[in-house]
Each structure stands twice: as C-alpha cells, then as structure tokens.
C-alpha cells in the first residue's frame, strides 16, 4: 500500500512534468517515467504479465517511436512558445481535471477498498489468466481490434505511397520530383 502511494506521487510528478517542461524530449522522457510507474503498480498488484506488457508495448515501442519523431523534428531548433490554437483550453483542462479529481476523491472517501471488489479473480494479470480471457470469451473482440490495427497499418502504407516508388532507381526522374525511398520510412 505504501509502495503504491510513493509510486503514485512519482507518477503524478512525472505526469505534471510532461505538460510543464519546455523541451519535447524531456516531456517524452517524463511520459516514459509515467508508463514505468504504471508497470510498477501492476507489479505490486501481482499482475506481472500486464506489467511486462506495459513496459514492452508502451516504454519499449510506442515511446521509442515518439522519441524518434521528437528528436528528428526538434534537433537544433530553439523552442518557441506558440500561441494557443484553441482559445480557453487551459481553463477547460483545469476545470475538467478538478472535476475528475474531486469525483475520485469522493469515491475513495465513501467506499471502503474492499467494497470495490470486481468479479476478476486474484490471479488476473498473469500470463495464463489473461491468455484464457483473451482467447476464450473475448476472442472476437481481439480479432476485431487486430483487424482494426491492420487496417491502420495498411492505410499508412497506402497514404505514403508515391507514384515514383515503383520506378527503378537507375531511371532518371522528371525534373523537380523527389522520390523518397518508401522501404525504410513508410512503416507504421
């Protein structure tokens, strides 16, 4: 219980740092801290597979791609404060955050932790229980999500495809046309 509080405080600090710090790479790093903290909370709850999946998927893949883009785009640039494109979004975010926070606090204050028990078994979060759930009752949903992600990946490939991609390298290109080699860059 103490561990969860300590990690929670660290995660909150990291989450605030994501939106407060100026440098985008620092934001991305703070976000990595949040995902690692979440993984540790899963570990404390003995959901070891969820914890590892969290690290592999979010810290190991998604955030690395974030960093890939951020380092590529911000290298050598001085960061400048851009004007808010949506007016009033800061106030909206403050109010929403307050409402959610107060709501959560009320729920915690009025309900004893043991009353919040769900129908999940205590072993949920291990490799076997999650596998049983995903490939058993939720198989259709899993297949649906897989199809959706596949559609997204193929969509990126189709949208990125330029007309010149099929042309052999040796053929001189029309003047003013630049062909990006679609093999390396055009992956989701």
């Amino acid at each position: 219980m103490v561990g969860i509080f300590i990690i929670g405080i660290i995660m909150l600090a990291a989450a605030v740092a994501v939106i407060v710090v100026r440098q985008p790479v620092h934001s991305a790093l703070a976000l990595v801290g949040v995902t690692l903290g979440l993984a540790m909370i899963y570990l404390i709850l003995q959901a070891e597979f969820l914890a590892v999946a969290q690290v592999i998927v979010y810290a190991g893949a998604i955030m690395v791609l974030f960093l890939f883009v951020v380092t590529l785009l911000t290298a050598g640039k001085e960061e400048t404060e851009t004007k808010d494109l949506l007016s009033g979004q800061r106030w909206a975010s403050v109010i929403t955050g307050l409402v959610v926070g107060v709501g959560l606090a009320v729920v915690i204050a009025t309900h004893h932790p043991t009353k919040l028990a769900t129908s999940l078994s205590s072993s949920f979060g291990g490799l076997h229980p999650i596998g049983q759930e995903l490939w058993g009752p939720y198989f259709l949903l899993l297949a649906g999500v897989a199809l959706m992600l596949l559609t997204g990946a193929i969509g990126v490939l189709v949208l990125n495809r330029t007309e010149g991609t099929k042309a052999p390298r040796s053929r001189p290109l029309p003047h003013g046309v630049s062909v990006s080699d679609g093999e390396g860059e055009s992956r989701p």
Partner: protein
Amino acid sequence: MILQIIVLVVKVLLLVGILMGGFAYVMLLERRLLGFFQLRLGPNRVGPGGMLQPIADALKMMLKEDLMPAGADPLVYRLAPVIAAFAALSVDAVIPFGAPIHLFGLTISLDIANPSIGLLIIFALSSLGVYGLVLGGWASQNKYSLLGGIRATAQIISYELAMGLSVMGVLLMAHTANLEGIVLAQKTHGWFWLPQIIPFLVFTITAIAETNRTPFDLPEAESELVAGYHTEYSGMRFALYYVAEYINMITQSGLIVTLFFGGWLGPSFLPPIIWYFIKVLIAIFVFVWIRATLPRFRYDKLMSFGWKILLPVAFIYFLGTAAFVSGVL
C-alpha cells in the same frame, strides 16, 4: 529471511562482477581474435599474452577528461549512458546459468530471480536499452550523433519484432515462459535448436542487430558517422556505452544458449555451470567470427531484410509450430 537476503546480495554482487569481468575479457578476446582473423597479432604487449590490457584500458578510461559539448543537454547527456548500461546489466538477472546447487544445507538457484514470465521480462528490460542510444545521440547536439541515434531506434524497433516472434516457437514447445522451465523442457524434448532451426537462425541474426554489431553496426558506422551516437562521449561515459554493448553480447549469447542449446545441460563429467560458460563462449566466438567476416549492410537493405524476410519467415515458422504443438498437423 536474513540468510536469504545475504545470499541474494552475494548473488547480485557476483553476477555484476562476473559480467564486468566478462566484459573486459570478452573485449580482449574479441580484439585478439579479430587480430588473428586479419593476420595480425592484436594487443599482446601488456602483461603475458596481453592479459592485462583490459586493466590498462580501464585505467585510461577512468583518467580521461569527461567532455561535454557546449550545446548539449546536460541532464539527458549524463543520463543516457547510464540507461544503456543499466538495461544491459539488469537483463541477466533472470537468466539461469547453472542447475541449483546445494551449499551448507541451502538450495541456491543460480539466477537472481526466477519469475514465471522470465522470457518476457528479458524483452521488456532489453527494449529499454535503446533509450540510451537515442537519447545520447540527441543530447550531444551533433548531426552524426543524432543520425546514429535515429538509426539505432529504427533498427532496434524493426528487429525486435522478428526476435519476439522467433522465440514464440520455443515458448510453445516448452509450454512455459520461465527460463529454468525452458531449460528443463530441453532435458526431455532434446535441445530446441534442431526443431526450431529457422527461429534459431532468425534469433541469432536479430541478436546481432540488437547489439549493433557488424554487419548491423549502422548506428555507429565509422565510415559514415564518425562513431554514431557516442561521437561526443569520452572517458567513463564512453566506457559505459562499451560496457552496455559487450554485456548485451554476453546476454544474447546466454539467451541463445538457454533457449536453443539446453542452457546448463550437458554430460555429467563437467559441472552444469561449466557447460553453460563453454556454450556461451562458443556463441561469443561466433559473434566475433561474423563481425570479422561480413561487411556492413546498406541502410535500405537492412530495413527490407528485417521487414520483408526475417519477420515473415519467423511468423510462418511460428504458425507452423503452433499448429504442430496444438495437434492440428
């Protein structure tokens, strides 16, 4: 309870000591072997046969000035090599390097931890290592470093997928993700390299790519990028990147041995732990051999090889293994 904690601390210290010593002498071994492959002697001046060369190198690294470029991001610049070394060292905690031994009435298993999902933990921790590379490249504020870091990201993410798929067959055959369980399964089923020959080859290739070694050393290609992501580093921080690289090589060799060559198993005239280290040494020799033999990939070839050949091959073999194990075939 206290005894267990003491045993654990001793095991951690031993493991870190073995890994750091292993790093120093694997590096010497590689330099000597590369020398022989290239018909020269390699470093043999310091001590008998060059045996004291790693100590001389370590002294040199520690005494060198720690430089930082003026435009660098100080926090990230200092953090990056630490992340790389941490990710490399921590992975080995779950690899068992010998059968449990009995000492003074205690049964001591020769790994730091033995979680039921050890294999996945290895993937999780080693996937963090790429942060050291990309952050070091970015924080240096140097075009060569940045290019090296970005290449490292793209390469490691691409090859991680094929690597993950290639071990799925082993997981299916052993019915467990626990590394000790995988070793023990090979006692009854035979070593997995033969039934999983193609995943074994895919795993070896991706392991070389993940450790950024020739022919996959594009992130630090010296003919194009000076030294890639660690161009600006000097002294101990530079050494930390080297520690990470060589310990990753030892780790990947250990993984190949554990997953495909029966871990510590072997004829009983030698203790299990000796068998494990002999096998790891052979794997390391193959790593060096490949480095001495093959030229570097071209970048677009690297990507198309990873995505168009390794990934589909690993996936198809995985599907076949799944069909075979579940009894469909």
